[in-house]
C-alpha cells in the first residue's frame, strides 16, 4: 500500500473483490435458473423435513449453490445437528 493510500484512508478490502464475489454468486443462480427466493423456500422445506428426525436450528442451516468440477453446479446443504432426539426425550 502506498503512502497516498494511507493518507486517504483507503480500505483494505477493494471493490474488485466485491465485484468478483457478487458475480460468481449471481451467475450460479442464473446458470441453474434457481433464483435466491426459491433457494430460500427450499431451505425452509428442508428444515421442516429434517427436523422431523433430528433437532436442528434454522439459523445454522445453510443451503447454497456451489461450483463443482466440470463446470457443474451442486446444491450443498450444511445442517448442523444439535442433539439426538432420543437424548432429549430421556432427559
Amino acid at each position, binding site marked *: 500500500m*502506498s503512502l*497516498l493510500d494511507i*493518507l486517504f484512508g483507503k480500505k483494505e478490502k477493494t471493490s*474488485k473483490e466485491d465485484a*468478483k464475489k457478487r458475480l460468481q454468486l449471481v451467475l450460479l443462480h442464473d446458470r441453474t435458473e434457481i433464483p435466491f427466493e426459491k433457494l430460500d423456500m427450499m431451505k425452509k422445506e428442508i428444515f421442516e423435513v429434517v427436523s422431523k428426525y433430528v433437532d436442528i436450528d434454522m439459523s445454522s442451516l445453510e443451503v447454497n449453490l456451489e461450483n463443482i468440477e466440470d463446470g457443474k453446479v451442486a446444491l450443498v446443504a450444511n445442517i448442523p445437528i444439535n442433539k439426538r432426539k432420543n437424548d432429549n426425550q430421556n432427559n
Partner: protein
Amino acid sequence: MDGRVIVVTSGKGGVGKTTTTANLGMALSNLGKKVALIDADIGLRNLDLVLGLENRIVYDIVDVVEEKCKLKQALIKDKRQPNLALLPAAQTRDKSAVTPEQMIEVCNELKKEFDIIIIDCPAGIEQGFKNAIAAATESIIVTNPEVSSIRDADRIIGLLDSVDHEMIPPKLIVNRIRMEMVKENEMLNVDDVKEILGIDLLGVVPDDESIITSTNKGIPAVMLDNSLAGQALKDIARRLLGENVPFMDLTKDNNTGIFSFFKKLFAKS
C-alpha cells in the same frame, strides 16, 4: 472460397461490439484477407458511421433480402482498403425484417467471395441476436470488466452453447480495461474475467482515448500508428488468423498525468 463467419456479440449494449467489428475488419483486410462486415443491428445502424462509410449507403441488407437490389449493389467497398466491404443495416426497419434463414443465405453468398465475414450483433437476446448468430460458426464475446456486462456475457455464452447448428466455443475480448484501476484492485483483472466466464481469451483492449477520437473521425484505430487500443486490436486480428501473438504488457506505466506523477512519487516512499 469458403469463408469463415464470425459473430461479434455481448448481450449488453455499449461494450464496444461495433468498434471491435470495425477495427477487426480493417485489421484483417490490412493483413491481406478479403473481409465483409455485416451490420445486423437493423433499425440502429452504426457500423457505417464508425467506419466512416455513412455517406456511401445506397442499399442495405433488407433491400437485399427483399430482392430490391443485388447483394453486390448493397456492399460498400472501402476506398482506403479495397479488401474491406460493408453490408449496412436498414435504418427505418426493425429486427423482424430479416429472418435467420435469409441471414444464412446472404452469408452463403458472401462466403463465395470473402475470406472472413464478421457480423456485428445487436444488443439483447431477441430476434436480432438470433438473426446475427444464425450463419456464424465462430463467435467473439466482447465484455467490459464490470459486473453487468460480464453477467450478460455469461448469458450469451449459455445461449451460444445451446444453438442447434455447429459452432466452435466462443472467444473472449476484455474491452476497455483500465490498468491503473486494476493495479489498485478496484477493477476486475483479465484473469478474474476469464475465471468467471470460463472461455478462452482472444485479447485485451485498454480503455483508450484514441478510440473516441478515431471514431469521431470515422477512422478505425487500427489505422493509426500510435494507438494502444489499435495495437491490441491488430494483435487480436493476427490471433484470429492463427498466429501466436503474445499478450501486450498493459502493466507498463504509461500514465503521464500530474496526479499519477505525485502518486508514483508517494508510492516510492
